[in-house]
């Protein structure tokens, strides 16, 4: 159990590469959306990458993750390969959910990635339940639960924080506070705009973190996860972050100014870490270019894979409405 970051070059390069994978993957998704190959809603994580990448760096494969409908970045950060993700975006049977979930519902049992929930606040009780099962079947594991600041107004947030603290459930709650619930600014939706302070009402420890910095995110997540793994119960992190693009593809952004967006772009997590690594000689231009080339070819490969994919046969439409057997989780199934 290590609650300190080991900030060597390789690790910094990893953080930067992970953020870049998310940014470029989504840029490709926008292209495919404009080409009408991706349809439906598409919610971009553009600007918020440091949150997922920082937290993921503090977790282990045994840990579980519950995310929101803005979860492409979460899925990538937590290890779901790009191929089945892109195939899912294109609605193909090679997709991680056989084309039934799409952008808002990416899941991977193998990676303990529990979605992908498009009901605001709907993932919080699920995360607490997964943590409850883990507490009994897989002691020492944590469940990271991501949600936006919009979810904080939902009853599910308050019910779950109370229950999680009451039962000392191993949940890392991460509020991705990007300041707008669709178009509603935080100050118009919440009487207390410091989200982390709400945890005190449930006697839950909490911190506010710079969500535009993956290193600070990771450091905070490591402290929180250490607390959780020691059996001391849940922890809340409020990541202050910002989405550079619209809420979804149908949003004129009348609710915020260009200046505001420009100001946040000055602390773009990817550019900021790139500059810092260069200035402090943690990386060379050549190494940066190599990483970028690697990411580009990974994306090209994923797009080729997805486009070559096949449609799920319509005969399978009714499959999995009811299951024939229980899908067993890997590891730690209790002995009956």
């Amino acid at each position, binding site marked *: 159990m290590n609650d300190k970051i080991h900030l060597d070059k390789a690790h910094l390069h990893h953080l930067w590469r992970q953020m870049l994978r998310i940014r470029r993957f989504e840029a490709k998704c926008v292209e495919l959306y404009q080409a009408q190959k991706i349809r439906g809603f598409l919610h971009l994580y553009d600007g918020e990458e440091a949150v997922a990448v920082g937290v993921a760096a503090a977790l282990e494969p045994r840990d*579980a993750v519950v995310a929101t409908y803005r979860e492409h970045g979460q899925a990538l950060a937590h290890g779901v390969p790009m191929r089945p993700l892109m195939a899912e975006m294109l609605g193909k049977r090679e*997709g*991680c*959910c*056989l*084309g*039934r*979930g799409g952008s808002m*519902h990416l*899941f*991977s*049992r193998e990676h303990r990635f*529990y*979605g992908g*929930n498009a*009901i605001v606040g*709907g993932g*919080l*009780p*699920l*995360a*607490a*339940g*997964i*943590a*409850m*099962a*883990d507490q*009994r*079947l897989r002691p020492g594991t944590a469940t990271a639960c991501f949600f936006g600041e919009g979810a904080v107004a939902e*009853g*599910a947030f308050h*019910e*779950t924080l*109370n*229950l999680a603290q*009451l039962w000392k459930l191993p949940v890392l709650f991460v509020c991705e506070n990007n300041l707008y619930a669709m178009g509603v600014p935080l100050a118009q939706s919440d009487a207390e705009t410091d989200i982390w302070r709400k945890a005190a009402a449930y006697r839950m420890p909490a911190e506010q973190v710079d969500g535009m910095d993956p290193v600070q995110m990771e450091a905070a997540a490591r402290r929180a996860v250490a607390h959780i793994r020691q059996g001391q119960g849940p922890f809340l992190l409020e990541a202050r972050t910002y989405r550079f693009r619209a809420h979804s593809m149908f949003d004129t952004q009348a609710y915020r100014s260009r200046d505001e967006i420009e100001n946040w772009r000055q602390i773009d997590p990817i550019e900021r870490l790139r500059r810092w690594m260069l200035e402090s000689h943690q990386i060379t231009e050549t190494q940066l270019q190599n990483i970028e080339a690697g990411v580009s070819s990974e994306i090209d490969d994923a797009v080729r894979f997805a486009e070559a994919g096949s449609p799920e046969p319509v005969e399978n439409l009714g*499959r*999995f*409405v*009811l*299951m*024939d*057997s*229980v*899908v*067993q*989780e890997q590891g*730690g*199934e*209790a*002995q*009956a």
Partner: protein
Amino acid sequence: MSAMLRMTYREACRQAIRDALATDPRTFIMGEDVGHYGGCYAVTKGLLEEFGPERVIDTPLAENGFTGIGIGAALAGLRPIVEIMTCNFSLLALDQILNNAATLPHMTGGQFSVPLVIRMATGGGRQLAAQHSHSLEGWYAHIPGLKVLAPGTVEDARHMLSAALADPNPVLLFEHIVLYNAEGELDPDVKAVDIERARVRRKGRDVSLVTYGNGLPKCLAAADELAREGIEAEVVDLRVLRPLDMGTVLASVSRTRRVVLVDEGWKSGSLSAEVAARLAEDALYELDAPVRRVCSREVPVPYAQHLEEAALPSVDGIVTAVRSIVPPRS
């Protein structure tokens, strides 16, 4: 053959839960007042003392939260029984039940199953007024991805739970509040029941009474009364409201050629409406008379005894409906 046991529906429910807790360490029961209080309807009395607070968990009043926790726990390997005090309160958890429990297996391409049982009390007849007396099982029976059960006998109360827990899908069990005190016979040699088929509870040649839950004793009483007039009513207990076993219903109706549907839900958009529609689709030419329905009056169930009685299906109402489609015998 062993001697038949007599017990209440409540005791049968309790034995079913005790059995489940004793046989599978992954099973626990969670809900409001299931522990120290012993359950709002005293179903879980004594279980906390027997199994301890890790297996019998009192929750705060947070239906959406603890139902969602049950779903998450089922996803990750446990076999929870969630108790929701009455089905009226389950509306606070409807988001979790519909958007997560019923949806996740299909939406994830079969990566996850939700082996969860939610028990709730349903129905009127104990003067608990409009926020504790409604029958919402018909709504839940609308939802793909769920199985919906309505035990109407002591035997089903005793054995449906273990079948529900063994099922890989989310199963909702609706226990009728009037039945908890009802006594019935239990055959100790019967160790299990299916949760697929409807059951003919009384044979008859003149009319089929199709019902479930607390409609069952009412239909059996109506059949007794009709028998005195020479009308032989067959009583079909649906038991499983989703997926519906229409085969058993159609077989009965093709024999009797007349049918009265008895459903404590409101008539509009009810389970009885679904059964009637399927009969119209698949058995119209088998029928010698129009389908009749006896449902709750379309009002919030009121408190005063005479008003409540007038709002719910009654034995008299069933008998009258039968007489309206079966020619008199003499």
